[in-house]
């Protein structure tokens, strides 16, 4: 059970702001799109499996279709050959969308400062939460996921229409 947001409660009714209600619903049924490329993907498998069980956070429904996903979880090295694919997947996702960058490689290129590796996915798409580690433990991935939940819970329903957000997307060349 989640806690109810602050509001006015009386006999037979409960009044609260629409934002917090929508946030509550969003935060507890985030559908992740696991974009697992390498080692961190195996740790994600552990996160998903019985021991750590990401289903406790309402995210057991993996959405391999980008159109229905809420959170893009990029796990593993993104090579320059792969970069357009990541961007394409991000573009296919519907708003509101969050991006969780899991592992040193996705965050910054990690130990692979080479000609073929993209030095962090934030060069091509905006990232909401970074999870460091090579690879991060499942607990860390869960923690990162909970931070995304926190973001989703407190986000204003109008945020995605603000000029600031549009400017952010425009800085990545996304209209």
């Amino acid at each position: 059970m989640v806690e109810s947001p602050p509001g006015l409660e009386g006999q037979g009714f409960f009044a609260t702001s629409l934002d917090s209600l929508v946030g509550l619903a969003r935060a507890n049924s985030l559908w992740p799109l696991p974009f697992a490329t390498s080692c961190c993907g195996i740790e994600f498998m552990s996160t998903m499996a019985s021991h750590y069980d990401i289903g406790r956070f309402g995210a057991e429904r993996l959405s391999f279709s980008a159109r229905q996903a809420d959170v893009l979880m990029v796990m593993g090295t993104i090579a320059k050959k792969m970069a357009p694919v990541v961007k394409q997947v991000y573009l296919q996702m519907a708003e509101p969308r969050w991006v969780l960058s899991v592992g040193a490689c996705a965050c910054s290129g990690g130990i692979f400062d080479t000609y073929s590796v993209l030095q962090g996915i934030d060069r091509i798409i905006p990232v909401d939460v970074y999870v460091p580690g090579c690879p991060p433990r499942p607990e860390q991935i869960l923690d990162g996921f909970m931070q995304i939940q926190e973001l989703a819970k407190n986000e204003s329903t109008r945020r995605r229409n603000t000029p600031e957000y549009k400017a952010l997307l425009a800085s990545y060349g996304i209209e």
Partner: protein
Amino acid sequence: MENQQIIDALQKQFGEEAIYGIGESHGILQVTTSVDNIVPMLHFLYADPVLKFQFLTDLAGIHFPDAVGQELGVIYHVHSLENNVRLWIKAYAPIDRPNFPTITGLYAAANWMEREAFDFYGIIFEGHPNLTRILNVDDMDYHPMRKEYPLEDATRHDKIDELFGR
């Protein structure tokens, strides 16, 4: 099977001049030959009823910038599973004409190995069915494993040379 037996068989078939650079490293025999001899030699080793080198373990390209006229090399690792003997065959070519014959006709496994050597070193395997880049992006204009090219990503601005003692 002794390594000497392989040398004898090769020298008998191809003549003593064709086989040079004979050595042994941790039990594995290595011979060097000319580029023209590669394909007949691998076919001979494959078909010989005693030697039976019928498994291509690996194919590695290599670059020696200082060896003038023999800059680029290819090392064929063949394995005779029945006799449990491994053999390296090396051949070198100049960097301005790095042409090797393909061995995809003999080993299907050589297809991607040769593409990889082409991708990394620019070694051209004549007669290869599809000699294109395999691991790197198609529009790359150099062969990154050659010694003169840097490892680091050139698009990074946050690496200040001073901080790295360069």
